[in-house]
């Protein structure tokens, strides 16, 4: 059977044709992204479409260097790569190596130029950044009334703290009049005296976010006396408003988290303060009580009764000591008396008289021991063992004893 081919043969034949085609190997294709899928492997699958139809595209992980932004459905892009056949499906597709936003080039340059200019003027410098107050009562919001952004902000804010007052200025955030509307919102909320302001919108293309890249909006944010949190698009969308704002939030929800404090945390802080005050007061009172008790102890010790007892005891002791001393002294004296009586007995003159000696005394009562003491005719008294003799001197004669 001539002229019959296998699928494989046909597919590889067609593939070969594509490969040999010079134009299909280096081609720029312009269209809108749809069916965009980021595969976990790092490959990106999407379609490019225009009014007439679509073409399947893939960007392999190895080519990701050619893509500097996040692909999203609806973006208008210019993809560079080659068109070839995927034999398994018998489908041709664009193997993209580089993808650029269509028409973004000009806007991007404008963005960079303005960013540079404002930066040189110092409008992004930290010294102009106002601190976001930790505990606000009112939050101003400049965003579209019907967007996802305002719903996100309200939901997060209510969940964190339903007592904070939110005031929305419904602004046009894209298209004609958006710049004026955003500026008016900032000024009016400033007049309302809100504590902090969230200025932003949900995600979108660079064109849709463009109002937040306009110098007038940047200046209005810069000049605002109320701290401004910018919340434009998604985390990856960066606008001039983000640079000039006092704080940049990656998303509107995040802005609400940064602006509105959690009431539960706040209450916890307050009850912790209360606990500490009560505990500190009790411990101070405790200290004073101990001090008072110590004083009371000391006072008790100093009571006059204690002195009285002391004196009384001292007196009693003294009395005892005196008594002791007296008694001892008495017995001592008694002994001495007895001793002396004994000695007296031994030297008593009566004893001498009884053994034949006598004692002679003059009339003046002097003991006569020598002849020289008496004169003739002098009267004397002589004591003997049983009485006295009165006598008269007849004569004296001195004798010298050998």
């Amino acid at each position: 059977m001539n002229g019959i081919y296998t699928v494989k043969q046909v597919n590889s034949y067609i593939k070969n044709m594509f490969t040999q085609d010079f134009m299909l190997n280096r081609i720029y294709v312009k269209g809108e992204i749809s069916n965009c899928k980021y595969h976990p492997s790092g490959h990106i699958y999407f379609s490019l479409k225009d009014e007439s139809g679509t073409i399947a595209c893939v960007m392999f992980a190895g080519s990701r260097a050619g893509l500097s932004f996040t692909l999203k459905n609806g973006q208008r892009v210019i993809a560079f790569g080659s068109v070839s056949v995927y034999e398994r499906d018998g489908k041709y597709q664009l193997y993209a190596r580089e993808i650029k936003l269509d028409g973004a080039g000009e806007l991007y340059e404008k963005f960079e130029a303005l960013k540079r200019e404002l930066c040189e003027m110092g409008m992004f410098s930290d010294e102009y950044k106002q601190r976001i107050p930790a505990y606000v009562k009112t939050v101003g919001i400049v965003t579209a009334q019907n967007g996802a952004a305002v719903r996100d902000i309200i939901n997060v804010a209510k969940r964190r703290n339903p007592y904070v007052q939110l005031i929305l200025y419904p602004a046009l955030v894209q298209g004609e009049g958006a710049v004026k509307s955003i500026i008016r919102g900032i000024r009016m909320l400033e007049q309302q005296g809100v504590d902090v302001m969230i200025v932003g919108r949900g995600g979108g293309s660079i064109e849709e976010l463009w109002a937040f890249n306009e110098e007038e909006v940047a200046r209005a944010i810069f000049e605002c006396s109320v701290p401004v949190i910018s919340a434009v698009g998604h985390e990856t969308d960066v606008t001039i408003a983000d640079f000039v704002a006092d704080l940049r939030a990656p998303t509107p929800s995040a802005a609400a988290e940064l602006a509105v404090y959690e009431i539960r945390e706040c209450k916890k802080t307050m009850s912790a303060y209360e606990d500490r005050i009560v505990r500190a007061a009790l411990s101070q009172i405790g200290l004073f009580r101990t001090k008072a008790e110590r004083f009371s102890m000391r006072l008790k010790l100093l009571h006059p009764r204690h002195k009285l007892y002391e004196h009384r005891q001292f007196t009693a002791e003294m009395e005892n000591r005196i008594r002791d001393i007296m008694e001892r002294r008495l017995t001592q004296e008694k002994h001495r008396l007895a001793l002396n009586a004994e000695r007296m007995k031994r030297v008593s003159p009566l004893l001498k008289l009884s053994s034949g000696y006598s004692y002679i005394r003059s009339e003046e009562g002097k003991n006569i021991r020598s002849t020289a003491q008496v004169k003739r005719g002098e009267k004397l008294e002589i004591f003997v063992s049983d009485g006295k003799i009165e006598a008269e001197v007849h004569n004296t004669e001195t004798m010298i004893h050998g």
Partner: protein
Amino acid sequence: MSEKKKENLEEMFKDLEELIGKMENEEITLEQTFDLYNNGMELLKKCNLSIDEVEKKVLVLDENGETDEF
């Protein structure tokens, strides 16, 4: 302005912190302890008042500066 500052939770928390620091660390008299205690409780009451625990409706500001419920 000073009125507003007084009602600021952040300021009041700072004051509380200082007050408690005094109560916890410094040698103070019994009278000072009572004074500090009363001041602390008064501050906490003010904190609570400042929170104004009434659930707020979201307001929408119109061109004339008037507000209306969302």
